[in-house]
């Protein structure tokens, strides 16, 4: 309906324009101005240049100021503060250049509109000016490059030794996360072992896989380095958590990684935003098919104690899917039962029986 109104409105405007135009043409023919090179329209166009400049600058300035809190999102990671800082420095520099050049462009267009009495100034060249406006942008850009690259280096450098390693798997159209369990090591995987239950293709001939657990939500500790090991199973996806300023493609056949330190727990963020329903979300940022826009996983940033507590509560994937015990080589079965805690469970069951 809204759309229909717009269309009808546009049509009316068009009809009006055509009519007005026709009248102008006829008037022009009568007055003999239709063959002149400089018509009164020259002044109108020159004036509109300035009007356009002023109106657009004020509207965009107003919107940028008033809606600042809506289009800027809070930062919740250590490196996010760095990249955002860089963003705003660049905004400052380019903002100044933007305003100066646009003002000159529209200002000159207005000021030097055609005037019979003032011929144009024949001024083909000036080596010094060219050098000036080559060197100055080069210096400014060099400064931006240097600060940018030092930040990039920090963000993409190797993860700290003590980083909490979590594996993220993207597939059409959802995410799965896997934690290394008590032994702190993610078990091996092979894509040929993937099936409807074993979505990571965990290889149970590797004993470090026994205690890996796969929760429904992504939990991470606050103020502690976390390293995401990122994989994709079918097509390219991309891990994106806006508040962390975190983005990395998930590529089939080529594991990628991203490390960061979250600085605000979910609770803290809820208080800061005064929004009790706030949740961090993991989104897909690389076109991946029909459900691309719905690939979401909740992310919970816990305090250190909450995180450890939550982790302790998690049961290994193997213990939840005991039928996969049969895939374990005979000599490792005992170990698997111990590592997954299934031995005590089994005993408890026996006792209760």
């Amino acid at each position, binding site marked *: 309906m809204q759309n229909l109104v717009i269309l009808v409105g546009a049509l009316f405007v068009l009809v009006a324009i055509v009519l007005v135009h026709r009248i102008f043409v006829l008037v022009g023919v009568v007055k003999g101005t239709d063959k002149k090179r400089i018509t009164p329209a020259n002044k109108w166009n020159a004036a509109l240049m300035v009007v356009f400049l002023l109106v657009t600058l004020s509207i965009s300035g107003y919107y940028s100021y008033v809606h600042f809190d809506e289009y800027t999102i809070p930062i919740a990671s250590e490196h996010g503060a760095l990249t955002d800082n*860089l963003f705003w420095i660049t905004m400052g520099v380019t903002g100044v250049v933007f305003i100066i050049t646009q003002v000159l462009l529209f200002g000159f267009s207005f000021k030097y509109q055609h005037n019979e009495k003032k011929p144009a100034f024949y001024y083909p060249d000036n080596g010094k000016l060219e050098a000036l406006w080559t060197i100055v942008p080069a210096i400014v850009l060099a400064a931006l490059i240097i600060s940018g690259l030092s930040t990039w280096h920090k963000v993409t450098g190797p993860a700290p030794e003590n980083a909490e390693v979590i594996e993220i798997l993207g597939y059409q159209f959802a995410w799965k996360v896997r934690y290394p369990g008590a032994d702190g090591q993610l078990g091996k995987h092979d894509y040929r072992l993937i099936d409807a239950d074993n979505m990571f293709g965990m290889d149970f001939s590797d004993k470090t896989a026994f205690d890996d657990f796969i929760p429904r939500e992504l939990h991470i500790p606050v103020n502690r380095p976390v390293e995401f090991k990122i994989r994709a199973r079918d097509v390219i996806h991309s891990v994106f958590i806006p508040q962390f300023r975190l983005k990395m493609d998930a590529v089939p056949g080529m594991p990628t990684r991203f490390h960061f330190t979250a600085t605000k727990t979910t609770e803290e963020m809820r208080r800061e935003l005064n929004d009790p329903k706030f949740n961090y979300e993991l989104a897909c940022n690389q076109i991946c098919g029909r459900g691309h826009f719905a690939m979401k996983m909740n992310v919970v940033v816990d305090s250190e104690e909450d995180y450890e507590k939550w982790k302790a509560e998690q049961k290994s994937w193997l213990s939840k899917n005991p039928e996969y015990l049969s895939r374990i080589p005979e000599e490792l079965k005992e170990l698997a039962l111990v590592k997954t805690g299934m031995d005590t469970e089994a005993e408890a069951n026996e006792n209760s029986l």
Partner: protein
Amino acid sequence: MSTLDTQTAAHVEDHAHDDHHEHHDNFWTKYIFSTDHKMIGKQFLVTGIFWAIIGGALSMIFRLQLGFPDMDLEWIRPILGNWITPQGKLDPEFYLALVTMHGTIMVFFVLTAGLSGTFSNYLIPLQIGARDMASGFMNMLSYWFFFLSGVVMLVSLFIETGPASAGWWNYPPLSALPQAVSGSGAGMTMWLVAMALFIVSSLLGSINYITTVINLRTAGMTLARLPLTIWSFFLTAIIGVLSFPVLLAAALLLIFDRGFGTAFYLSEIYIGGEALPQVGGSPILYQHLFWFLGHPEVYIVLLPALGITSEVISTNSRKPIFGYRAMIGSMLGITILSFVVWAHHMFVSGMNPFLGTIFTLLTLIIAVPSAVKVFNYLATLWRGNIVFTPATLFSIGLVSLFISGGLTGIFLGNSAIDIQLHDTYFVVAHFHLVMGSASFFGLMAGVYHWFPKMFGRMMDSRLGYVHFWLTFIGVYMVFFPMHYIGIAGFPRHYYSFTNFQAFSGFSDLNAFVSAAAIFTFVAQLIFLFNFFYSMYKGRRAPQNPWNSNTLEWTTPIEPGHGNWPGAIPAVYRWPYDYSKPNADKDGFEDFIPQTVPLSETPNSNLPFEKEQMEEVKQK
């Protein structure tokens, strides 16, 4: 002088020869299988306009979805059929097909073929003083390969599984596996075939442009006297020749992966309940190959627009272009650098971060020549005597859009900032301003400026003004708000934003953008009317409507095959002698065409020109 004499004689002979042919022109050889560069240029233009309407219309449909997600789209069912779900909504997969085809069509068919194809063909022989392209037959083939490519692409829009829908870059594995998205079935095959044909067309055209510019310049037309339009077409053609074959390679390997079980791009994939046998391939390889064309492609669409703007701004501010040599230098710089910045599209693709370092450095360097160009435009306008023709307006608009979109490139080229902005609406805003809109404005400037030469009639300038202002306001209303949406983190290619808290805002701004897009699209009807109406009913064009210096305005108002009825004029000066001091004493107004010898302008000659004359006399 002797070389000049023989050349002229040869040309005269040529001409007699051409004249002989002209009498035998029938409908088919004149309008369809023409080998005349002017007709081929017009064919590219009209085909480009057709594709612009299709590409624009596709964007209208997905903007409805994005701006008014609750709208009942039942009324488009007659066109889209089952791509409208029983609930009256757009099918999410067809949404992806729409954005994919919008991108492909606009980038390749409109802004490459429609812009470069039109004006390189039309202007190169006319502005360098040649009878036609080096090979008229190859030129004709170039158009017909493009036409064929278009037919295949158009048909792919109507097949049951839908056209390609993995984004205009069509990254594998998504584009390689029909299980992943239905558009990767027959639609993708047709996309690849169409692109292969398009590449053939582009190469045939580019080789011709390069050869023509190098070999067929008229007497006196040294490289330093070429209009900047020709320089831009020449460099564009060089970029095309060097980069398009790489896309062909990428497409070929993808064809193998899709049909012949190879694993160039595929590795360790589990999809649709089965593990595929391919291992060892790398999807990143495709990205490198694609962007090795994909980035230079940006300059393939932009450079001709900048060349046209240089010419139009200089002519209509009645001033020489400021820093002619710096303009050529910066275009050369852009040409070379355009080949070494491609991986800035891949900062978060998982490639080695060290590559990110290198490509940040190289990418931001390319901002320097771009900045030089902007400053030179501003200096050209400074103390000019500006005549606002519709072409002037579109050129000034181009500079404004080029600044706005160029500056946001400095954010995106910096890898650390790109982490957050990558593939968000900030990127959409950036490239639609700097590449899409700026090039489109260049195309429009060119059409308004050379329409009188093309069709012997004037376009209505008042309608041109209205068209410009509505379009200019329109594109800023469409693309400026996208920056905010992008800073807020909204990702591209999302069918709807309702699933995420983080992306739940800005429905008002999205609706505004969609309304503005419809507004801008409808405003193009003014142009369409003006274009086709003026072709038949416009006021008859004078010989040189814009008082311009370049050679094309010395041809008859409607030049025949061969361009000049007599000898090809020789050239004695650069094309930017506007408002030269003392020109009035030599009997000239505020312009001295390239064909006027220095000996006829003793009062206005500059010291270096006097020296040149002395040298000629001594010889």
